[in-house]
């Protein structure tokens, strides 16, 4: 177990290094930020000065090593636009994005698990048919368009819910959360719903097909023969057996939701990482984009790691090697 953990950590570090080289290389190729930073009437001397001040006159590998050394000290460069450290700009937006992502995933699990199981147990019923066609619609809806439709219906036409921002937030252990105030909750509903629909549809389909396969297995027949109630067989024993793919998908989905927040946050002007990075891309704010990519890679590597570890708890047959 310990050996496995060490190997996985080493592997993760290698992946992160690879990502940092690739990202830095593409950034390097994408041109010189100096021309955007200075007004067009700047003299040649000013251009040269700024370039050497930023270290852009050095060869690629020196620039990369300097970047890496600073990164290990927690310094990912300064935002050109905000003139603040890129790292802290992103870190202070993580709670907003995480709050959105976790709420959306929880929402899709709470609805998706029972709905998918029901569709597997009673596939011919009217409700199950509707659940399945609804889930097909759900994976075919472009997320950003769904967001617009929700804004149109609930903000523009009905005027029930706000369409942008995060509303009032409350500090919990120094982290600002919107979940605890009514205003914050109101602001959360539409963006969380927008993200949840696609994942809900995915979970329903996954649970249904997994459940259908499990229900055909011998141990289910045996449990029924033993006289267990149908509900207990389905909702306890069969459910246990489909948890593994659900954990994988949920873990991966959390990552995707964080990445996809780029879209949802842009629509709802949600002050999270996604909105920051889109603004930074359009504003050519290179250090912020670079820092975002590194932090998000770190998150992904960590999430994959976590999913693997949770496996062993769910299925003792899996040995981590």
């Amino acid at each position, binding site marked *: 177990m310990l050996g496995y953990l060490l190997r996985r950590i080493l592997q993760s570090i290698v992946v992160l290094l690879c990502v940092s080289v690739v990202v830095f290389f*593409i950034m390097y190729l994408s041109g010189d930020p100096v021309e955007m930073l200075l007004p067009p009437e700047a003299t040649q001397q000013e251009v040269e000065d700024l370039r050497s001040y930023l270290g852009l006159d050095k060869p690629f590998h020196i620039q990369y090593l300097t970047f890496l050394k600073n990164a290990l000290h927690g310094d990912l460069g300064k935002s050109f636009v905000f003139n603040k450290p890129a790292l802290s700009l992103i870190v202070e937006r993580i709670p907003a994005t995480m709050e959105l992502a976790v709420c959306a995933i929880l929402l899709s699990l709470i609805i998706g698990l029972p709905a998918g199981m029901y569709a597997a147990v009673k596939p011919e019923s009217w409700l199950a048919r509707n659940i399945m066609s609804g889930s097909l619609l759900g994976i075919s809806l472009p997320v950003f368009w769904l967001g617009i439709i929700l804004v149109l219906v609930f903000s523009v036409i009905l005027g029930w819910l706000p369409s942008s921002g995060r509303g009032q937030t409350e500090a919990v252990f120094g982290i600002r959360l919107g979940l605890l105030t009514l205003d914050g909750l109101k602001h959360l509903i539409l963006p969380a719903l927008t993200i949840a629909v696609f994942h809900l549809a995915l979970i329903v389909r996954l649970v249904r097909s997994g459940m259908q396969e499990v229900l055909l297995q011998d141990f289910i027949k045996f449990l029924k023969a033993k006289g267990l109630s149908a509900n207990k067989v389905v909702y306890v024993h069969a459910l246990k057996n489909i948890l593994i793919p659900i954990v994988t998908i949920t873990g991966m989905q959390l990552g995707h939701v964080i990445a996809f927040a780029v879209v949802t946050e842009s629509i709802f002007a949600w002050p999270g990482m996604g909105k920051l990075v889109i603004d930074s891309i359009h504003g050519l704010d290179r250090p912020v984009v670079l820092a975002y*990519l590194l932090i998000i890679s770190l998150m992904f590597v960590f999430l994959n790691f976590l999913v693997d570890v949770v496996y062993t708890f769910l299925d003792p047959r899996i040995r981590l090697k």
Partner: protein
Amino acid sequence: MNLSGWREFWEEFRESKSGIFGAALTLLLILVALFAPLISPQNPYDLTQLFLEDSNLAPKWTLGKFMLGSDGQGRDLYSAILYGLRVSLYVGLSSTAISAIFGTLMGLLAGYMGGKTDAIIMRIADIQLSFPAILIALVIMSLWGQGLFKIIIAISVVTWVFYARTARGSTLSEREKDYVDSARAAGMTSSAIMLREVLPNIVAPIIVIGTVRVANSIILESTLSFLGLGVPITEPSLGSLIYEGYQVLFSGFWWSSVLPGLALMGIVLGVNLLGDRLRDVLNPRLKR
């Protein structure tokens, strides 16, 4: 496949109403996109045909110009949607073709060669798969800037992995079969065995994945275009139309974001239904 094979396929395919519906919807939208210049009342790319006083007209719901209203630049929305559909389908289909070909070749190479080649190709695939497609495409487009060709390449770069994995899996099992041994004994080179002997036998699952992925590629393209990192504004896709429509949503001009979205949903739903059905019919696991 010979003629009776096709007939058998069709007999099975048409058993499902949703499969037929998906195929019909897809075909209809492809035809409409193909003949857009002939059936649209206006050329939305021709700036001399646009007049500012026509901007943001509400849908008339009668045939002809402005039947679906107009957008902020005075473009006939119906024409813009037809042309947008054309761009979206073009990007979706060509990026799928490129990534399917490249991915299949990579998977074939990895599966057939094994050893270091396999390890390198599949490790790259693993690393890439641990990051969401949208993020990688976003990075590429943010560095390259907008462009039709660029987005096709970006989507291909993101999606080749799916084909590589499938192709590798099938190649691994094909490699052990007698016909490969006899081809090798007959003195065929490795590349000839891969392309002429193994490739035809692994193509079916690739086609199924390809169909389903077209829908994903179309959504990916429209999402990037919605974020302003996709096709150029001179040739708007459905995603860029929705973005432009969103800018005027709060002024009450709902049609210019809702209607292009319906078209987008139509094509994605059609392709998804078609793909689901193809998977059911062609999947050998379910045919036992």
